[in-house]
């Protein structure tokens, strides 16, 4: 075998491997569309479930997921940006900083069911928030922190040092420099991390189990202290707990969840490429 042949074979193998990575995502999407598209119509999207969920729509679950995603954002974003700014701009190399970093790495590794138990203990029972949107948002928010902190910190560190120097040398304070130079320039990276974190939260099931999700609640939540249905948990319920559940409703629900999560991811990558193009000065 000549060197050229070896080269050709290697390139084909690498290309094939890359292609194989695309295959599962395409298959999953196509399969779910084929199986679930038939269920989707106006009633399905806007009606309350009826007849033990085998009829009607999934509106409360969609709304629940949207509300929980917002709740997660409200909990995690200010905390995460604060922590990222601290780590990137202020942290000295001392035991506290090392402890914070270790905590973030470990938070990222904790299984979501454990977050769920933590939320149950800390928010639902100890703070007496009950099984509620607020308890769920707090739990999901904490779960999302590591991703958002890490990506935000990376984005902040990627802002070239010379802009900080220039800003300070023009008489801006450190805080003004962060507010007017560093954060605006890091914003696209921060947004990307936020959206990826939120899309993960939107698809989360195990955490919701203990903290917020209602098995079957054919009405809309009235306050933050109410339970709510949510798409991922609803999907789990109708797929495993309800006898005689029409398959199209299951796949239709999966399709809606997939669309929500994928559109979040899509927004993230659009933001990223947009800004990368703007950066090319």
């Amino acid at each position, binding site marked *: 075998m000549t060197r050229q042949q070896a080269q050709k074979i290697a390139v084909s193998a690498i290309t094939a491997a890359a292609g194989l990575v695309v295959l599962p995502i395409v298959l999953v999407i196509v399969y779910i569309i084929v199986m679930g598209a038939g269920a989707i119509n106006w009633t399905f999207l806007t009606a309350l479930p009826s007849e033990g969920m085998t009829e009607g729509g999934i509106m409360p679950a969609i709304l629940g997921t949207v509300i929980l995603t917002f709740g997660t954002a409200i909990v995690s974003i200010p905390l995460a940006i604060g922590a990222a700014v601290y780590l990137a701009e202020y942290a000295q190399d001392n035991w506290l900083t090392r402890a914070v970093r270790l905590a973030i790495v470990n938070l990222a590794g904790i299984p979501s069911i454990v977050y769920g138990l933590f939320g149950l203990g800390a928010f639902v029972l100890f703070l007496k928030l009950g099984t509620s949107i607020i308890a769920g948002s707090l739990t999901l928010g904490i779960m999302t922190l590591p991703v958002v902190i890490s990506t935000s910190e990376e984005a902040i560190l990627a802002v070239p040092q*010379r*802009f900080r*120097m*220039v*800003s*300070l*040398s*023009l*008489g*801006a*304070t450190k805080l*003004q420099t962060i507010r*007017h*130079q560093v954060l*605006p*320039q890091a914003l696209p990276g921060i947004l990307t991390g936020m959206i990826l974190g939120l899309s993960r939260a939107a698809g989360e099931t195990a955490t919701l189990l203990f903290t917020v999700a209602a098995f079957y609640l054919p009405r809309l939540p009235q306050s933050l202290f109410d339970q709510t249905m949510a798409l991922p948990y609803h999907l789990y319920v109708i797929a495993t707990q309800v006898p005689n559940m029409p398959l199209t409703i299951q796949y239709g629900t999966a399709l809606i969840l997939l669309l929500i999560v994928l559109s979040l991811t899509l927004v993230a990558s659009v933001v990223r490429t947009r800004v990368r193009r703007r950066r090319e*000065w």
Partner: protein
Amino acid sequence: MPEQNHPKISLLDVTFRYADETEALRKITLDIAPNQVYVLFGPSRSGKSTLLRLLNRLSDLTEGAQVSGRIALNGQDIFSPAVRVAALRRRVSMVFAIPTPLPGSIRENLTYGLRMAGATDPLMLEERIQQSLVQAALWDEVKDRLDHSAMALSGGQQQRLCIARSLALQPEVLLLDNPTSGLDPLSTATVEDSLYELKRSYTIIMVPHSVQQAGRVADRAAFMLDGELIEEGPRDRIFINPTHERTESYVTGRFG
């Protein structure tokens, strides 16, 4: 002219050590009179940039560094607790070697320092924009596109914008660290020419690009070597008739 006899800036026994114990400046004593171009020159690593960064305390940002001695601006110690660093940096303003416009328009760049200091009066801001651009010899080239991105300017224009951005603060002292390093000869000449105008209103301390440039722009010059001030004096003495042998061999190009 007021204060003509008092130095604008005076250094007394200034020593500066980086965290790794590099002694970048050793017992520097130096007076800089107002309204002149004062040139700090010498071979690489002689401590010129370190000295400039000390004068508006950008050196505060280098962790673990140690300063001793006294630096005074108009007779006031710049390290005294009464001095607010942000205010000091508006009075002693730095232009870096690499032109660094901030993201945003030309106008936003020019007003950045003033806005951070709390200025909001649009008339005053407009006036400063025009004034500083005229002084930096950039007004004619950009007056019709103040709202365009500053990044779209040429390198030479960007550097003059950076000078104008400092001037908009109406500082007392302008620190120029090799401001023509990346510029073509024509832009270099424009920047050098503007210095003659600028020194009427400001005190300029500049690290030049070369000995030739030092000779062209200096009123007074200081020769530095390995963190020490070898000698300083009026331009003609330093460049035509230096006292020290090492200064002479450096200005005649025999080393460095």
